[in-house]
């Protein structure tokens, strides 16, 4: 099993202290597996815990409870030092291309940083022969290597960020909203790059985004998160063609349709109200406060993940 799955997450829980005795329930009991060479998309609104989930998996945060198994190795409680060699297998692409690159470093130094950190090259100069092809691969040129990150446009920066994440040839890349800060005309460039690299190297992505159409396009499997819970997970076409969870339905109905004729026919299917505070999440199913189909039971018992047929997993009392 484990040699098939690059990543296995079991009942992952991450709580943050929020001053005093308050606890933010960022991620609560999330489980999924990611097969080698595949892409798993995680979608949800801001505050649903998808980013915390990613950052806990990559052990930027310590795990509160549960297990993270990377390529058959349990990394849940590893010390940072033990983890270091494993970091080569697991890299991350960040949301904000402005904040994620150090403005005081040249592009070459930024891309060479992982090489130096893992002792693959000793000197920055020696990194050139690895850095240049990478730069060209992401559509930039050698001349860009000596420029500083602050001189680049958002899309160019994001490609530098991708080059940094991919230069170690990782097996798993966690993409934390890699396109949401980019202009529409640039997003497709980045998505194509990621897809090409996957085809070439057979790596796996954990792709986090709130743009549902993009997630569907890149992912093999999609998980929908709401307030720290994973509410539905299945094959990506299935989730869009046949959403089961009321939240998934609402989310899909909220996507603006880039077609005025269809948009006019669209019925109002969106979800009313706001996402509750993760400090005091609702009892039972966390979505029941906004759910149009809520039953009394929903406010009391937390629904378990069930197979609704064909590997379509959903956590809802309706099924």
């Amino acid at each position: 099993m484990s040699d098939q799955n690059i990543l296995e997450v079991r009942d992952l829980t991450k709580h943050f202290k929020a001053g005093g005795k308050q606890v933010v329930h960022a991620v609560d009991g999330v489980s999924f597996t990611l097969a080698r060479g595949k892409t798993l998309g995680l979608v949800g609104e801001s505050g649903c815990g998808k980013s915390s989930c990613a950052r806990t998996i990559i052990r930027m945060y310590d795990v509160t409870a549960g297990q993270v198994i990377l390529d058959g190795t349990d990394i849940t409680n590893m010390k940072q030092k033990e983890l270091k060699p494993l970091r080569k297998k697991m890299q991350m692409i960040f949301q904000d291309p402005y904040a994620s690159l150090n403005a005081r470093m040249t592009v070459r130094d930024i891309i060479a940083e992982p090489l130096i950190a893992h002792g693959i090259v000793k000197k920055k100069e020696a990194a050139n022969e690895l850095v240049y092809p990478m730069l060209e691969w992401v559509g930039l040129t050698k001349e860009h290597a000596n420029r500083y990150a602050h001189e680049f446009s958002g899309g160019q920066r994001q490609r530098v960020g991708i080059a940094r994440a991919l230069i170690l040839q990782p097996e798993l890349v966690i993409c934390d909203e890699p396109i949401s800060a980019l202009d529409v005309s640039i997003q497709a460039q980045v998505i194509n790059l990621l897809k090409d690299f996957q085809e070439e190297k057979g790596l796996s992505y954990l792709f986090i985004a709130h743009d549902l159409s993009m997630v569907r396009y890149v992912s093999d499997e999609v998980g929908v998160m709401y307030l720290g819970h994973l509410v539905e997970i299945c094959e990506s076409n299935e989730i869009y063609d046949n959403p089961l969870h009321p939240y998934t339905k609402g989310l899909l109905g909220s996507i603006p349709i880039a077609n005025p004729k269809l948009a006019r026919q669209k019925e109002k299917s969106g979800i009313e109200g706001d996402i509750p505070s993760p400090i005091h999440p609702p009892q039972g199913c966390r979505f029941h406060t906004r759910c149009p189909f809520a039953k009394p039971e929903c406010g009391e018992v937390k629904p378990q993940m069930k197979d609704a047929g064909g590997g379509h997993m959903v956590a809802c009392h309706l099924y």
Partner: protein
Amino acid sequence: MENRWEMLESSNEDREKLWKKNRTFAGDVWFRFRHKPTAIAGFVIIVLLLLFALAGPYFTKYSYSAQNLELVNIPPRMKVYEAPDGTGYMYITQSLKVVWVNKDGTLGGQLKKVREESESSMTIFDCNGTEVALYYGVKPYMMADPETRVLYPTRHVFNKSYTLGTDSLGRDILTRLMYGTRVSLMVAFVAVLVNLVIGIIFGGISGYAGGTVDTIMMRIVDIISTIPLTLYVILIMVVLGTGLKSIIVALGTVYWVDMARVVRGQVLSLREQEFVLAAKTIGSSTKSILVQHLIPNAMGSILVTVTMLIPSAIFMEAFLGFLGIGLQPPLASLGTMCNDATENLRSCPYQLFIPALVICLIMFAFNFVGDGLRDALDPKLKK
């Protein structure tokens, strides 16, 4: 004529061309800095002061400690009486001596006293063979030639021997000013350097470690900053003895508190930045995160704090010197010069005015530079 409908060949280089000038971050800061007149003025003043303090002593024939008791309290601009023979001028000092002044403004020695006629409040001096009388019974003093014609102070001349005059011990103020500025700047730079090292290490560790370590370290800083600064410095001076070394030690061990706070604040906010998180996920060591990411990015605010700390250290040194617990004579610092000048403030205000002016200049210059740096480093102003 070429076909205007021919396809335009755009290469990837054209599409990804960077239009911004290739400037490093420092270059960018310098670009904005030099477009601010006050900052440039401050910068020029600092450079001139440094030249003055470091190179100046090589161009003066006096030493900071050599006394010339014949020529005491001579101002930079003298009210002089023409000598009866017209070959030069005479200047009356505060201690009722008469000093010979050559036509070109250089000073000769004191005139020889011939006799004292105390009953008529007169002193008779020998001026190139003729006798002149100084009548000190009334103010302003009067001089008379042998024919008892009253001599009037006919003109003002600039002191060419001692451009800025002499002090109460007949030392050249200009030379002492050079050494004084040198001492003040040195005290400031060394103290700030000490600060910088302690502050960056202390603040860096505190900010990066966070949690309990941070809390404890910051409480230490709080405690130190509640001790009245002057009192503490005076105590250190008492223990270590007065002198340059103890001033530096005193200032160096106190001012780092501000620096540590600044560094900690910066590191605290920077370590949550995505590029630092990225470095962590890459697997970079703590050392390289600190050296490559945190410190360079915090350098801007550190630099601003430094330029603001320097004038405050200079002022503190001057203040201590003024209180008389700074440098010991004959060493000069701007503060001790001010202190010396207070004795005869009424008759020789220039002795206080000149070093005070230099202190003001230094403070202004560094504050302007600090201000300019802060604006130049502020990314919000960058468009």
